């Protein structure tokens, strides 16, 4: 069966393209376009545990090879934990 792009996917792609084009050109983006773009890209957008929920346990090596987890990273009031894409690019 030939794949037919569902209408809403094509529409979402068009919204994302327009948003990207305007931003790259430094053109203003209306609140409506921004909201449409957010919806289009956030279909499966996940931001993880919500306030009140516990984060998963983890044990990962740091830049010096030392194993770190919540208990040896926290200060007295907790931890600021940043997830970022890459240190390289």
């Amino acid at each position, binding site marked *: 069966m030939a794949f037919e792009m569902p209408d809403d996917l094509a529409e979402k792609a068009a919204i994302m393209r327009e948003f990207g084009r305007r931003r790259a050109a430094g053109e203003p983006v209306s609140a409506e376009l921004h909201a449409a773009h957010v919806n289009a*890209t956030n279909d499966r957008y996940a931001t993880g545990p919500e306030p009140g929920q516990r984060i998963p346990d983890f044990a990962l090596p*740091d830049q010096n090879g030392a194993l770190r987890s919540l208990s040896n990273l*926290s200060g*007295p009031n*907790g931890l600021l934990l940043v997830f970022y894409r890459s240190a390289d690019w």
Partner: protein
Amino acid sequence: MELERNLAAVRKQGLGVAAISYDSVAVLKNFADRQHITYPLLSDSGSKTIRAFGILNDTVKPDTAFYGIPYPGTYIVNVQGKVQSKYFEDDFRERVSASDILIKESGRQADAARSVSQTKHLRLAATASTQVARPGHRIVLSLDINLNPKMHVYAPGVQGYIPIDWKVEEGPAAKPHVFQYPASQMMHLKVIGETVPVYRERIRMNREITFGPEEALKPLVTPAGELILKGSFRYQACDDRECYLPQTVPLEWHFHFEGLERERVPEELQRKLR
């Protein structure tokens, strides 16, 4: 890096600091050495922790070197690992800066990029959460207004008087976010028998702006490396005897522009296609 610059302030809040990515320990070591990063950079090479958090970016194709990246964001968790607050941006090219998070978490006033103006009716200090303009960063701008004794100004929604109006120039350099004016007081004006919403003594306001992408900021940077954001504050002041002409005070925030880091780790450390 911006977080390193704000490290002392974050630690002063009693918080530890750590950052997680899918980079190898070798890549992180190289990066930390070059950028003089002193806080822990954790290596989640197989994206196991990223997946466990449920924030794997699954719009990225599995056959690229980028597969395994998270939706970027920041959590503040307590000692038991319970999330207190989180900061995630809609647009992947934007991020809430550490300076912005600090203002929100600590309730402190922004105190960088400070400039002060004085009129016949009030004194106005304009500050920002950081001195540095980085593409895509969301930061906080603050206005701290001290009214002269007996003066009052009017709150939005008032009839018959000019309410305060804080504008920040919208353009390629910065996107101002929607903000709420602080709660006003009701004042009864005996002479006209009306009760009106006013501000007296002191007004403190914070609003956020997000800097545009590098290609939009670069043309606006002065030869001295500065990026200047403009705005204005309009008001009409009255005291217990008379009302004065409305005034518009021009505002400026001066930032030092910092472009995105372009330097990569040595080739042999770079992540290859799987």
